[in-house]
C-alpha cells in the first residue's frame, strides 16, 4: 500500500462520508477515521458499529430509505402503519393484485389491519408489480416494504 493509495482511500472515505475506514490488503492494513461530519449524514449513512447488533437481531427489519432498491426503475411500496398485511379484501377473495399486474395510482394493493380497522393501501405510482415482499397475514412494521413496482 503506497501513500498515494492511502491518500486515495482517505479521499474515498471523504466522498462516501464514512466515519471510519479500515482496509487490509494481505498483510497491509489501513484504518481511516474522519473528523468532521454532520448529524444528518450520520443518521442516514453510518453503519451500525456496536449496534451492528441491531442488524444482527433477526426480529429487527430495516424500514424506509435504507431499503430503497439500487435499481432506479424500481419503487418500493411501504407500510405507512403498523399492523397485519392482507393481500385480499377477505380470506376467500382473490388478492387485490398479482405479480406482473399493471397498476395505476389509486389502485388498492392490500389491506393493513390496525386496531381492528382495515386500512387500504393504494399504489402511488404506475407500473408493474414485480414482487410481493410479505405474505398474507404477516405482521408488518412502520416503513416495511410490501411491494416492488417497476416503472414501465
Amino acid at each position: 500500500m503506497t501513500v498515494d493509495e492511502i491518500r486515495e482511500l482517505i479521499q474515498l472515505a471523504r466522498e462516501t462520508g464514512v466515519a471510519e475506514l479500515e482496509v487490509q490488503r494481505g498483510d497491509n492494513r489501513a484504518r481511516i477515521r474522519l473528523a468532521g461530519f454532520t448529524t444528518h449524514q450520520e443518521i442516514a449513512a453510518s453503519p451500525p458499529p456496536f449496534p451492528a447488533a441491531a442488524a444482527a437481531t433477526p426480529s429487527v427489519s430495516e424500514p424506509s430509505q435504507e431499503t430503497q432498491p439500487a435499481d432506479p426503475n424500481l419503487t418500493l411500496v411501504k407500510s405507512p402503519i403498523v399492523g397485519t398485511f392482507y393481500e385480499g379484501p377477505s380470506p376467500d377473495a382473490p388478492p387485490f393484485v398479482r405479480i406482473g399486474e399493471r397498476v395505476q395510482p389509486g389502485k388498492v394493493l392490500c389491506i393493513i389491519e390496525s386496531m381492528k380497522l382495515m386500512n387500504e393501501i393504494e399504489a402511488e405510482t404506475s407500473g408493474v408489480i414485480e414482487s410481493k415482499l410479505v405474505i398474507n397475514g404477516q405482521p408488518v412494521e412502520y416503513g416495511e416494504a410490501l411491494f416492488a413496482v417497476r416503472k414501465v
Partner: protein
Amino acid sequence: MPSVRFNKVLIANRGEIAVRVIAACKELGIQTVAVYSEADRYSSHVRFADQAICIGPAKSARSYLDQASIVSAAEITNVDAIHPGYGFLSENAGFAEVCESSGIKFIGPSPRVIRLMGVKERARAFMREMGVPVLPGSEGVLNSPEEALETAESIGYPVILKASAGGGGRGMRIVNGPGELAGLFAQAQQEAGAAFSSPDLYLEKYLAAPRHIEFQLLADEYGDVEILGERECSIQRRHQKLLEESPSLAVTDEQRREISAVLRKAIAASGYTSAGTVEFLMDETGKLTFMEVNARVQVEHPVTEFVTGIDIVKSQIRIAQGERLRDILPGPLELRGHAIECRINAENPDTFQPSPGRITGFHLPGGIGVRVDTWAYTDCVIPPYYDSLVAKLITYGSDRQEAIRRMQRALSMFIVEGIYTSIPLHQRILADPDFQAGRFDTGFIQRLLK
C-alpha cells in the same frame, strides 16, 4: 384477581427507561418487545429487546405518542402487557383505556386513578379530605376573579394561580397583590384553555423558595400500600430536575413517619395501584404540603432503589401480574445509606443549548457504589428529536458525604466525547459549600449560575 404471569411485555418508550424496563423483564423471565421511531433504529433498547417494531418516523406525535401504532405493535407481537415508562403516554388515561379494551394490561394505575391524579385540583381536594396537609388555597375550581380575590385575601399574598389540568408551568401566574389579580386571572385562564383544553383554575399560597420533596409509593391491587421514603429534588433549573437524592436532609424521622402514615391511608382509599410519586413542597419552617401525584415511575427512582434495596420497576410489573406487595417486597422496609443521582444531559453546560450528535468516545465510571442507567454507547448518535438525557449516574454511600465524594470521583471518570454534557455543571453543584452542607431550595441553581 388471580396472579398471572406475563409472557411478553411491550415497552412503549425509548432511551434509558426502555432499557431499564427491558432489564427488569429479563430478570423476571419475561420476553420484551421494543418499539422505535426511525431515528432510534440503532438505540440500545432495540438491541436488547427480544423483538423490535418500527412504529413511525422520528417525530414523537407519529411514533412514541401514536397510540394506534403502539397498540397495533402490541397486537401483532401478541404481548400481555404494555409498560409506558415515563413521559409520552405514561399518564394518558385514554391510552390506558385503549390498552385495557384491547385486552392488554397497562402497567400503571387504572384509567380512573390516572384521571383523578391528572386533574390537579381534584387530586388536591382528595388529599385534603384524606388528611394530607395541603397549602392554603381555593376549595375547588375558581368560578370568577372575584372568588379568586376573596380567597387570596383570606390566605394572604403572594398566591399562585394554577391550571387544574395543568403541568409544566403553563397556565401558572404568581400574584403579589390584589391589584394584579384580575389581569393575571384572565391571562392564566386563556393560557390554560389553549394548553389543556380547559380554562379551569385554582389558587394556592405561593412559596418563593421551597424545597421540592417527593415520596415514592408502591400499591398492589389488594389495597396494600408501602411508602419507600422520600427524595430531595430541589436542585432544578426551570422545573427540570438536575440532581436528586435520598433521603432528604430536611425531612426528620418523625415527619417521614407521619407523612408515610397519612399517605398510606390516602393512597389506599384512592384505589391507586402500581408505583407512583407524591410531590410535596417544604416551606422555610420545614412544613411539608402536598403538591401533586405523578402516576408513573419517575426518572429519579434509582436513588430510592439504592437506599431501600427494592426494585421499583420489577415491583410495578409484578403488581400488574396481580401479585401481592407482601410477596414482592423482600422484608420489612429499611432505609440504609444515602444515594444521589445526576442526570447527564446532552447540553452545553454554560448555555444549556441541547447538544445532539455522535458520541465519539464514551467511558462509563464503575466500581463500588456506582450505577449507570443509559442507552448510549461509543459511536451512538443522540438524536435531536427527544429529551437530552444521555445517562443517569447514581452513587451510593454509607452516608451523604461518601455518596457525594463518590459522585465526584465517578464524574471525573465519566468520559463523553463529541457532544457537550452537563457533567461540568454537576461538578459545580457538588463542589458548592451550600450544596455540601444541605442548605438549598429550588432557587439554588439560579443562584449558582448568577
